[in-house]
């Protein structure tokens, strides 16, 4: 494969950025949930 280093760098940096952003959002959501009364945090399709 040509340009293997560039390809690896491009894909892994993108993945790292998107995954860390996603994790950050999920963690923030969990932390904030604790500070909001239960009846105010229902998502329309929430099952659990």
């Amino acid at each position, binding site marked *: 494969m040509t340009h293997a280093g*560039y*390809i690896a760098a491009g894909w892994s940096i*993108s993945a790292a950025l998107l995954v860390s952003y*996603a994790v950050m959002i*999920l963690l923030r*959501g969990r932390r904030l949930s604790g500070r909001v009364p239960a009846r105010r945090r229902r998502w*329309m399709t*929430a099952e659990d």
Partner: protein
Amino acid sequence: MSILLGRSPDRRPPEAAPAHTGSRTTRILGALTLAGLVGLGLCAFIFSPPDSRPGPEAGTRIGQFDAVRLMYVHLPAAIWTYVALGTCAMASAVYLWRRSAWWDRLAHACAEIGVVLCAVTLITGMIWGRPVWGTWWEWGDVRVVTTLVLFLVYAGYLAMRSVPAAPEARARRASILGLGGAVLIPIVNRSVEWWENRTLHQQSTLEELRIEDLTLFTLVLGILVMGLLSLWLAVHRFRVAWLEAEAESAGLEAALAERRAEAGAGAEGSSP
């Protein structure tokens, strides 16, 4: 709209409320995204061919070769950057018209996702440009420069939103900024286009790519998967914004009660 958050008075017991921003919708979305990512990985690295075709002289090959595999991230990220930031500008405009917090939160969520995707676009673009164009940064390309300005404008938008302020005042300022970005970008695009009267993009990349068979399929798949991922991120981010506002107003109710208690005590002390 109702996918994003519930507003119905609920019949279920309170302990059933989720302690996170997930729901059945997001789980389905997430599963589709993950499956799509696996498929994209397979197509991008194993099934799709490198870009190469016979050169002008006999026996030589030209093209991007394997560097084309970076396109499967770069192009979808770029497309969804424009969609996300365009949605932000549109939501800002609607906010100014309707003045409802819903649109403000949507604008905020889209701006944040747009900026992240824009960073991905710029980084993969630079990494791709180095082997193919021979430079990390090409000043002469309209889209490269415009995208950087777009990134800076909406990074400024997020910087402004991060400053503590009264929610309504912040929403107003943010909506003007979000809309201002949409006003600015066409002008930037036009000025850069005139500035260097050529665009490398169209001449040396997509049009000459062998856009057929699996390359095209993989690009379309990449766009779909990135779209699913963006939507999944947007739903979660929107719910985080909702929770933030709710946490703030929950704090306000406590502060109000405290303030009224202070009034009660003060009145007793000062009553004749």
